[in-house]
């Protein structure tokens, strides 16, 4: 930096050094100044609220009467609340069945779009658009698609001699129905995969081809390792998002039938904003928070076994 900024003969060395340290001070001040919106945001919208929710966890509060200290009472209550276990199991089902399927569908679509096909931008639009439309709009539509009597899905199944299935009205089928719908919303993951696939160096594939690797082997041994960081990224984001699913269930099933689609965030929402059990809801939120963090940590722990970082090894 010194070499480029100080032209020889104009400034002597000591002057340069003093000026640099003044510049450093200015950079420190400006660094804090420029990042201050984010620093304030983190303090006001993350650190502060998280500390505050520790207070909430220890108190019983309906936002009308003053908060009452109850210690670990909320956690004892959770153990006796059958809906907590139910919503945890539902959420886990939705995540661990749904996310792998979403990744497979998104990846398959991306691989297909990565071939030199005609009308690429049209297909890209069709697959991507659902994931950026307002959830309420498509949720309303999907209620109709999944309608047992008039729904399109059952009509399609009928062509193949299957069904009819009661989808959202039958506890066993409600979660699969929501997962099927989530596959329709994988456009964002797909487009990230596609960007990754387009970044795979052609030379590597050609080198493998010269070595006699067939298309399948090239795909497994060249393409997959190269884009493994992107698979990892989509998996992390997918699991975090899936654990917090809310809007679609709130609109489509509101937790039913027989609590088959009562997911954690929906149960937290009900406790907080319908029953005004702020402390209990905050405690449930912390439990979900810790679960998500644990799964994220586990994934990072196993990441170095299968995620390949170029130049890092």
């Amino acid at each position: 930096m010194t070499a480029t900024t100080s032209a020889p003969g104009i400034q002597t060395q000591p002057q340069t050094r003093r000026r640099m340290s003044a510049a450093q001070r200015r950079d420190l001040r400006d660094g804090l100044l420029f990042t201050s919106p984010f620093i304030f945001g983190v303090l006001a919208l993350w650190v502060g609220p998280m500390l505050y929710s520790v207070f909430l966890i220890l108190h019983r509060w309906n936002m009308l009467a003053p908060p009452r200290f109850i210690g670990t009472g909320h956690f004892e209550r959770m153990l006796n609340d059958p809906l907590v276990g139910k919503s945890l199991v539902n959420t886990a089902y939705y995540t661990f069945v749904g996310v792998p399927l979403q990744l497979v569908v998104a990846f398959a679509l991306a691989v297909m779009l990565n071939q030199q096909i005609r009308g690429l931008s049209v297909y890209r639009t069709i697959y991507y658009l659902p994931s950026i439309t307002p959830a309420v709009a498509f949720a309303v539509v999907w209620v109709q698609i999944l309608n047992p009597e008039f729904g399109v899905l059952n009509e399609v199944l009928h062509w193949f001699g299957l069904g009819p299935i009661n989808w959202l009205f039958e506890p066993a089928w409600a979660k699969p129905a929501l997962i099927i719908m989530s596959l329709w919303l994988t456009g964002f993951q797909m487009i990230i995969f596609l960007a990754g696939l387009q970044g795979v160096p052609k030379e590597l594939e050609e080198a493998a081809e010269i070595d006699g690797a067939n298309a399948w082997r090239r795909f497994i041994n060249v393409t997959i390792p190269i884009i493994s960081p992107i698979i990892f990224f989509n998996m992390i984001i997918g699991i975090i998002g899936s654990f917090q699913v809310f809007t679609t269930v709130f609109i489509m099933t509101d937790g039913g039938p027989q609590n088959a689609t009562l997911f954690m965030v929906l149960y937290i929402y009900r406790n907080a904003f319908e029953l005004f059990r702020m402390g209990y809801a905050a405690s449930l939120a912390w439990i979900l928070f810790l679960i998500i963090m644990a799964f994220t940590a586990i994934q990072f722990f196993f990441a170095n076994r299968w995620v390949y970082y170029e130049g890092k090894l």
Partner: protein
Amino acid sequence: MMIALGLTFLMPLAWVVSTSLKLPGQVFITPIEWIPTEPKWDNYFEVFRRLPFHLFIRNSFFVSIMGTIGMVLSSLTVAYGLSRLRWPGRDFVFTVLLATMMLPAVVTMIPVFIIFKEINWVGTFYPLWVPAWFGAAFYIFLMRQYMLTLPLELDEAAKIDGASNFRILWQVIAPLCGPAVATITIFAFLQHYNAFMEPLIYISKSEMYTLPLGLLWFKGRFGNFWHLVMAASMITILPVIIIFFFAQRQFVQGAQFTGLAGR
């Protein structure tokens, strides 16, 4: 196969469009009549006659535009501090940024609500767009990655001319960040436009509803009139389709930026 799969993905949208143009009696006729013989455009006007959708549109656009402006400005400012300046503590702030990208928001939902209630912001639009002005980790990260690709000589030349960091950001760096700004504009707009939980929690007066809440209200009141519900859905979806049509490149670019994020 591509065509069959494409049609499958397109089907829900096709169903919305076709149903929104039908008479009530035609909605549930099987086999489905995909192209109504006499499109009934009046369904769309009927939606506006039944509920004040013009207000919902106005509210949605207000919140989305304010949030987007905040997101763009905060991303530029914070990313500049994280990519163009060297200062002790910068790496720590950047680590915090990466961490907040992975923190599940559910843990702050309730305390943040109580804080907004304490400052009397519940029932106003502020909780929906003000947080964007403090930046969001994902957008700041995206902008930082972009700024790192610009040569440092630009800043140094401007510094020799005596420009302050403030001027360098707005007059030298920001004008070169067009693609990243465009991507963040699109994503931030849609994020605010599509938001459901925040309006649900913070907005109670019906004249302040955003489109998602208005649509849910419409469905609740006129749920049996599927042709109208679908017309209302279409009114909600249409701006997104228009934005996508004009900004396809930014979407793909955004994916490429996030692709960098994965690496």
